[in-house]
């Protein structure tokens, strides 16, 4: 029997703020000693009080505007009550029925085409502490609590059950991450746990049938695992149903090694969180002028930018999406275009998505956009050849360079003078009789070898295309 999967995604993402959500503690960094980024408020000491972080609120309002959501005129905070050692106050400050943003959507393109995923709500809350379960040298087990993460600002974004397959879920999560990074709301590094994805999955026999029993899937630590875990869970449920079984409402974890899901916990009788309005925090009025200023400050959003690169700059959909997918790359592209307005966009895009992204992924610093533009311009005008340009690029990301000056002072200009190149070619042909013999025997690769030798003899400055032409002509003689 064929089943339709119904999938909703819940994403928790750590906002990019200098301090925690309700106290002045700095956001913990990798390598901080446990419990060093804490204060009475995020430790839940007797008498401590929360004060909301304005920047966090602004970032969520910006996210709301970017997904076309509505923000209420007044919002408030609610207490979600439950006991767990990672929750120091015994309640989490969250938002129940007045989230900072509601009813937005995100456009998603998959192999099947374009569509959109509706977002039900986005709200602010505080993160919990981190628990570590350890066994001491004597075999005793202990649970250790690090409150550094306690109280860090979290944005929770919940979709409508609009998704039908793992690929769309993955693309949605990737697109949301890109949006968050583009507007500076979050770094959303999934490998550091800054972005956590949970999926609710149920099956139904047809698209007009009621929803089936849903299973929550957690522990998906990469976008790839989001796609695979959902695909696996949907097929697992189909097998159960096909065999005449029923789906148990539960939380399952994704096991990366076996590529299967496993039961983490059966759904306890639905938890009563006893939400009520947080009495320590007054309701928050969202001044329209404040919201308007936030909207006005939004950068160009990924979807708009991709469309513009295709329609205005003539880039391919693929090139446009590669550039936009990395905000730093898009920023370099924009800045370089601003510096050299006549520069060929396609060539510049190739340089950004090729050379730049390659080194950026290795952690290199960004080049100066003006000099980067000058470098690509020198390639465009054939003033320097590709080999020289790549060498200069490798240098400029570690050492500031003035490209114009360096080309002149180091004599890096490309040799396009036929006379000069022919002299080099004559020497190369004389020095490589074997290559000539190979060519005569019909081996075309001999030409490439001779071009390489000539390039070497020109100290990398020869015009590669012209060298090829001239060598062929010489051999033909």
């Amino acid at each position, binding site marked *: 029997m064929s089943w339709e999967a119904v999938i909703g995604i819940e994403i928790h993402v750590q906002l990019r703020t200098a301090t925690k959500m309700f106290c002045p503690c700095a956001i913990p960094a990798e390598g901080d000693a446990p419990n060093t980024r804490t204060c009475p408020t995020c430790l839940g000491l007797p008498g401590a009080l929360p004060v909301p972080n304005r920047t966090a609120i602004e970032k969520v309002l910006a996210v709301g505007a970017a997904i076309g959501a509505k923000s209420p005129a007044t919002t408030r905070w609610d207490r979600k009550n439950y006991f767990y050692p990672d929750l120091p106050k015994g309640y989490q400050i969250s938002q129940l029925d007045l989230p900072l943003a509601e009813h937005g959507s995100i456009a998603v393109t998959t192999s099947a085409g374009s569509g959109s995923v509706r977002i039900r709500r986005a709200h602010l809350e505080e993160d919990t502490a981190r628990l570590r379960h350890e066994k001491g040298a004597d075999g005793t087990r202990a649970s250790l609590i690090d409150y550094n993460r306690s109280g860090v600002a979290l944005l929770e974004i919940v979709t409508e059950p609009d998704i039908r397959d793992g690929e769309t879920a993955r693309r949605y999560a990737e697109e949301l991450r890109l949006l968050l990074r583009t507007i500076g709301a979050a770094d959303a590094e999934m490998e550091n746990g800054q972005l956590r994805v949970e999926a609710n999955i149920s099956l139904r026999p047809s698209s007009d049938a009621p929803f089936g029993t849903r299973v929550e899937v957690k522990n998906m630590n990469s976008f790839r695992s989001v796609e695979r875990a959902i695909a696996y869970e949907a097929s697992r449920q189909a097998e159960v149903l096909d065999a005449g079984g029923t789906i148990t409402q539960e939380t399952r974890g994704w096991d990366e090694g076996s590529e299967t899901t496993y039961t983490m916990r059966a759904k306890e009788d639905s938890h009563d969180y006893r*939400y009520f309005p947080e*009495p320590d925090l007054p309701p928050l009025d969202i001044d329209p002028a404040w919201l308007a200023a936030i909207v006005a400050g939004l950068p160009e959003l990924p979807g708009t930018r991709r469309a513009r690169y295709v329609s205005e700059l003539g880039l391919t959909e693929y090139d446009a999406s590669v550039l936009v997918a990395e905000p730093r790359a898009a920023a370099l592209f924009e800045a370089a275009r601003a510096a050299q307005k006549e520069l060929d966009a396609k060539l510049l895009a190739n340089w950004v998505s090729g050379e730049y992204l390659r080194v950026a992924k290795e952690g290199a610093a960004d080049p100066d956009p003006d000099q980067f533009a000058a470098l690509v311009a020198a390639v465009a005008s054939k003033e320097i050849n590709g080999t020289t340009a790549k060498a200069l690029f490798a240098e400029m990301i570690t050492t500031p360079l003035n490209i114009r000056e360096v080309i002149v002072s180091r004599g890096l200009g490309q040799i396009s003078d036929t006379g000069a190149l022919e002299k080099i070619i004559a020497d190369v042909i004389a020095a490589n009789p074997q290559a000539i013999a190979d060519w005569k025997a019909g081996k075309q690769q001999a030409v490439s070898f001779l071009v390489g030798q000539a390039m070497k003899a020109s100290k990398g400055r020869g015009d590669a295309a012209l060298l090829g032409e001239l060598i062929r002509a010489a051999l033909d003689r």
Partner: protein
Amino acid sequence: MSAELRRATAAQLRAGFGSGAFTSLEVVDALLGAIAQEDAALGAWLHLRTGEVRGEAQRADDAYAAARASGAEAVRALAPLLGVPIALKDLVNMVGTPTTAGSKILEGYISPYDATITTKLKAAGALILGKTNMDEFAMGSSTEFSAYRRTVNPWDRERVPGGSSGGSASAVAALHAPLSIGSDTGGSIRQPASLTGITGLKPTYGRVSRYGIVAFASSLDQIGPFARSAQDAALMLHAIAGSDPRDATSSALPVDAALLTLPQGDQAASAIKGKRFALPKEYFVAGMEPGVEAAVRAAVAALQSAGAVIDEVSLPTTEHALATYYIVAPAEASANLARYDGIRYGASKHGGGDLLDGYLATRGRGFGPEVRRRIMLGTYALSAGFYDAYYLKAQKVRTLIARDFDRIWSAGYDAIVAPASPSVAWKFGAKMSDPVAMYLADACTIPTNMAGLPGLSTPCGLSEGLPVGLQLIGAPWSETGLLSIAAGYEALTADAPWRAQEPTDLAALGGAA
């Protein structure tokens, strides 16, 4: 001399330190001596800073001596409470001192930080003698729910001092300190002030920062002073009031400098003329002791003869205040007290069984009966299916209560005059087996908390030899006005025989030690 120093008000102490008539150290020693002699019987204190406070007094005296050498202006410029010893209710955090909130669950807990009011009181020069006894987590009206000790009323050792700030009230009434800090969620400053014959002020919600005050019910809790005069209460309010970036519910309104110098004597008395007071009939409820009603009506008559206009008014929602309070306050408390889980601090019973066993044992044994009762009430009221019927409805009634009061202020009244407590101090144990009888003790004070208004209790006579308090309730932010009226009433009744009467068991306290 020592007896005189014990009786002095904070204002008199400040003047005497300034003139060099006596020193802060002499006062501190007199008070510590009295405490050593009498507190075994009084039971007001939970922790004393005996060692530290003498050094602090010495430093205050040095500052006065130096200032005197530079002239009167330099003395005036010193902090308004410099060298004045005070007491903190044991729910105010002070770095390095125990903070138990009267509960076993916080036994051994030492505060790692100062409450905002602690910082402000230190900045105002006050010397913190120690921490005072209270009903556990401020839940109670007699201080009998303290997990640590019984505090007696200095007017009668067989009777309660009221609560929950009974330790702070008894300490001031028994001349162990001129000033103390209390907290008032449903009457916990005004009711014990009434029962021990002193002045107690609950400021407008938001007037005083709650940062560092162990929370009972966040939307109702306010911190305020106990004193033996309106002027002294005003001095302490001036020291602790003001906006606090650490408390999102604190008001940005500036602190009124007029609190430092309220009208006194004839000037204060004559200011009563032309004042308009509302007398709400619902506050003279069935069950009110006749002696209490008589004393309050006599006080109202005194105000009237001084030229005040008194109108009987109706606050029809008064009868609903108690019931709604016992939804809202326990609901908030059920969440506020969730942090006492034995995981990070305080008494812990974790380690035996699983996590749930640890929670149950820690909280089951750490909390006393009244706290457990209120956590259960609050948890129930917030539970799925009951929220709308209880918590939401209670909040709606709360709005109606506030509207009732608004009508009074719109009609131009300067204050509401009412009893602070329907009874005088009762005997130990009289209400311990009947929670509702205990809850009714706060019937006159709870509506003010529900509406966030300022209210004070000022002594207005005796009934059966025990103090009665006159309650003044004002519009939001009208503390200076309320305290000025109280100062006027003090002046009007300065010669009343009951004013000369000191707590009747004061002498016996020392004898019993």
